[in-house]
């Protein structure tokens, strides 16, 4: 069971995320769980594996909204970087793979809290 303290230690901006959920802790923690289960993580991995920059941008862009809404900073930062790196690109971009790996590792870490 994920807790507010564990999320804080992990590096999430829980004050901001909670405020966005009107300081309803149970609601916020439920949203965090749902954001971590976002199918766009799988879509991002599949797109990176296939070298599909457009699909990878689309998945990263979607994650920027949902992960940003719950203020999971360790995932949100590389997601924003990857979104901007891939914006308007049709072919694989150097550095994208490393960012995608950071995103996946940060998600795994959050899931293990």
């Amino acid at each position: 069971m994920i807790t507010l303290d564990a999320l804080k230690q992990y590096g999430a901006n829980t004050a901001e995320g909670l405020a966005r959920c009107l300081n309803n802790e149970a609601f916020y923690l439920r949203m965090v769980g749902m954001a971590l289960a976002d199918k766009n993580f799988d879509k991002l991995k599949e797109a990176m594996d296939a070298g599909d920059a457009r699909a990878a941008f689309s998945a990263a862009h979607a994650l920027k909204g949902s992960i940003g809404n719950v203020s999971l900073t360790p995932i949100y930062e590389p997601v924003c970087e990857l979104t901007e790196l891939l914006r308007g690109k049709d072919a694989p971009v150097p550095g994208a793979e490393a960012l995608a790996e950071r995103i996946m590792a940060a998600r795994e870490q959050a899931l293990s809290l």
Partner: protein
Amino acid sequence: MTGRRTEEKAAELGRQSIGKIPDHCLSGSEAAFSGRRLLLVEDNIVNMEIARLLLTQAGFAVETAENGQAAVDMVSASEAGYYHAILMDIQMPVMDGYQATRTIRALDDPARAGIPILAMTADAFQEDQKAAFDAGMQGHIAKPVDLKQMMTALEQVLR
């Protein structure tokens, strides 16, 4: 106490138990928002639930659609004046927010075709905002949601 007042009281208690919009995010707008009906169009469940919470607590009646086509269908089937505004995600399956906005703007009935539509997007770039305006949207709500900015954008189109 009448049935209607009981319902209102229950709704009020429900709002209090969930959370309250901070006063600094409202500028006397809550009375203007009360009873106004919004169509929230969003395919991501987290974004949908957070926006629904905030909008409901601000006094809006909120209905939802998961993609642009569903939104077009709901607006087309509604009575004129039923929805006071639409909050529209851009990147969605089946039909995206730009296409849905253009389709609503092309409806025969001027009341439904003219419903205020605000884009909800993680893009803050000028070209993206221009694309939203070109499609017929009146404004922009950022993702992640900034509560004050969301309320200000709604106030502007609902005044």
